[in-house]
């Protein structure tokens, strides 16, 4: 572990219509002018209206965000920018014309952090920036930004306010991400300029300060590399995790509950709140199916890496002949969208709400702590059940939340061609879609079939140590994607 970090942003809490900053254009351009003397540069950055400080990490005394742990890349834009401003996204350079790409291409040796060599720091940072851009799917982002800008400039845009709101929100978010990276590049180039300037003028103090700033950036960049893995629209959301046992009776149901336990422990170890919403126990052991809610920032971003079928090979404790068994459990992960405007609109009249497992006369006749509720969405036949809350009202509310997310997911699948990322629901997952194998016998190993990442200690994995698998998958996924689009 240690890979995870606290990120300070919650799911899509985006203002529908960010206010226009009257200075937006000029100050943005100012940010990209580079030949500045040291003190002016520092001043500009710290007083800049787009400064990270206003919605990101607290800034250090030198005006740079240092190694703060907030996710600058996904920071929310407070400013709406129009297409004319995308022109400002031209490549920044140092005073002697060096770009970030040029630095990366120079092949300066990257030495240990402890070596005070600015070229080594700069090369490391430039490489990180390249990787970050790749993970953010930079080219796709730029193309999309251009499309959105064009859409925003249409005069009839606001005839459809819902569409307009969505477009301007997406535009703002994208712009925010792009600017954050550009700002980071800009910072690198400015520090290089300052360092060179300090050397020319023999200003030891300034030189030391710039070297230190480069080192801070280098560390920061490593974190940003990881953060960039979670830049998807819904990554910051909380989520539901659902596990369903495959064919094979008790052995599979036991496996399903081991898998569910693995996620509970994983989630808890990362400080996510875990609530069991639905659990259908097996007759003898294990579970047929269960749903948990995992609440916390980026829960979905990580957990989505787990979607698919998980396979177990072991000597079954349920087989008196001690034979080796293979069992399967399917895992689905559904984001919980908090941005109401993108949710599927459910009509009250389309719902049938039933007391689940109700029997007998009810009312005053019965004392029971069972108040499970099932809600069926009649047009789609999709349903959700919750039984673990302590009142019927809360069971209904939880079931409703699950249903909402399932319908959102269905809607996302329908609109898959529009830039939405979609994770499969349990019903869509085919049992052939195996993503990982857990072998307890005859040897011991867990291997991810998508990344070939493997671990020889299944116990630690089943105890929730999944980070290696998750991060490996996410980076593989993103590297592959960008390759396809370029």
């Amino acid at each position, binding site marked *: 572990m240690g890979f995870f970090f606290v990120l300070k942003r919650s799911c899509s809490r985006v203002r529908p219509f960010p206010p226009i900053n009257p200075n937006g254009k000029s100050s943005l351009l100012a940010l990209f002018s580079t030949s500045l003397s040291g003190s002016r540069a520092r001043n500009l950055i710290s007083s800049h209206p787009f400064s990270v400080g206003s919605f990101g990490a607290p800034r250090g005394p030198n005006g740079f965000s240092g190694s703060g742990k907030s996710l600058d890349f996904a920071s929310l834009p407070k400013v709406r920018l129009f297409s004319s401003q995308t022109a400002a996204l031209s490549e920044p350079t140092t005073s002697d014309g060096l770009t970030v790409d040029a630095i990366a291409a120079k092949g300066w040796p990257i030495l240990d952090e402890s070596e005070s060599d600015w070229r080594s720091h700069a090369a490391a940072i430039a490489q990180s920036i390249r990787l970050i851009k790749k993970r953010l799917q930079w080219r796709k982002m730029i193309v999309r930004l251009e499309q959105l800008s064009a859409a925003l400039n249409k005069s009839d845009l606001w005839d459809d306010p819902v569409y307009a709101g969505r477009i301007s929100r997406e535009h703002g978010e994208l712009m925010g991400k792009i600017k954050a990276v550009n700002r980071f590049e800009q910072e690198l180039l400015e520090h290089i300029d300052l360092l060179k300037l300090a050397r020319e003028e023999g200003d030891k103090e300034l030189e030391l300060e710039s070297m230190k700033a480069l080192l801070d950036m280098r560390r920061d960049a490593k974190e940003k590399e990881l953060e960039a893995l979670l830049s998807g629209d819904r990554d910051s959301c909380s989520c539901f995790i659902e596990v369903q046992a495959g064919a094979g009776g008790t052995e599979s149901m036991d496996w399903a509950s081991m898998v569910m336990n693995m996620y509970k422990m994983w989630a808890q170890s990362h400080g996510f709140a875990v609530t069991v919403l639905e659990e259908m126990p097996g007759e003898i052991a294990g579970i047929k199916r269960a749903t948990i809610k995992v609440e916390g920032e980026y829960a979905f971003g990580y957990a989505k890496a787990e979607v698919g079928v998980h396979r177990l090979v072991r000597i079954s404790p349920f087989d008196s002949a001690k034979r080796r068994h293979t069992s399967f459990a399917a895992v689905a992960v559904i984001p919980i969208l908090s941005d109401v405007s993108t949710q599927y609109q459910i009509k009250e009249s389309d719902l049938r709400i039933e007391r689940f497992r109700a029997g007998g006369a*009810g*009312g005053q*006749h019965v004392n029971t702590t069972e108040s499970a509720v099932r809600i069926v969405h009649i047009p789609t036949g999709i349903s959700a059940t919750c039984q673990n809350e302590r009142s019927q009202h809360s069971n209904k509310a939880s079931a409703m939340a699950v249903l909402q997310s399932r319908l959102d997911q269905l809607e996302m699948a329908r609109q898959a061609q529009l830039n939405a990322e979609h994770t499969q629901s349990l019903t869509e997952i085919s049992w052939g879609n195996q993503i990982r194998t857990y072998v307890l016998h005859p040897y011991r190993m867990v291997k991810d079939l998508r990344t070939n990442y493997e671990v020889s200690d299944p116990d630690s994995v089943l105890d929730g140590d999944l980070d290696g698998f998750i991060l490996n998958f996410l980076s593989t996924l993103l590297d592959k994607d960008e390759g396809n689009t370029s």
Partner: protein
Amino acid sequence: MILRLPFAIRSALPSPSLPLHRRPIRSPPASALSSLPPRPRQEIPLFLRPLAHSAARSDLDAFRRWAKSLALTAAPGIAAAADGGPDADHLIRELSWLVQDATSEPEVGDEVRLRVGLEELYRLWRERIEKRRPFQYLVGCEHWRDLVLVVREGVLIPRPETELLVDMVAEVEGFQEGLWADMGTGSGAIAVGIGRLLGVRGKVFATDLSPDAVEVARFNVERYGLKDKVEIREGPWFEPLQDVKGKLAGLVSNPPYIPSSHISGLQAEVGWHEPRLALDGGKDGTDYLLHLCEGSASALKPGGFFAFETNGDKQSEFIADFISTMWGNFFENVETVLDFAGIKRFVTGVRR
């Protein structure tokens, strides 16, 4: 790896002899009664007590195992009594809630802070299983709607079906600013549920004949800070409401509606432990319902709304028919409303 056993873990303690095979009778068997230690009337519900005790985590785990095996051993006996009592799954869930109420948020470390001593937990769980004492009396509360209501012996534990009465009130146009009455308020459930939704001028009068109910309802109203919105009045049905006669925007009630002859066959948790005054509705169970319908005509203002809970299907139909034929010129839009189990649970209507 998680060690999983295909079979239930055997009880660490010898399982007690269970008085479960006898048919439930109206009051607990004398043996059960006499072994119940006298409890102070005003016991603080578990979840509100301070974390003044503690236990080793391993001891709490041992309690859990013991309690689980007690539940699993007792379940077949409860099922055999065929009175609709809890099954093993329900009991195990109640056990986790009992521990939830007795501890604080998930604690790490070897020492767990508790709101009662571990011995008390053992005693409580024994009562749950051996005496069929309702879980809600054990912990002193019931989660109902989004509320946690305090309950104790002498007061009916509010039922999930009844939650819907509040939703029905909330659908009445302009209900927020009206005067409402919840007759036979018991724990105050309905009154608190409505009180929380009211506007500045709205108010609920909550009445009950039982001093126990009045005391508990008062506690719940105060716990939710609704003293200004919910006024508790002691007395039989309409009597405490004379001063607002003809001014009420709505009347709701979940009056006792079980036919007297059914009382002796009730589920042990209900028949042995809940107050008969809250359950027994006379020969057909309709004594109070009819009284309420009749009184509503003069208590409600024109356009006023009523909603009553009933014993279900036949009783609802009977009451709805009766109102339409006998008091047809006083009421309109009289209808029955389903609960989530699909039973016609409520009768609603409007004063002309």
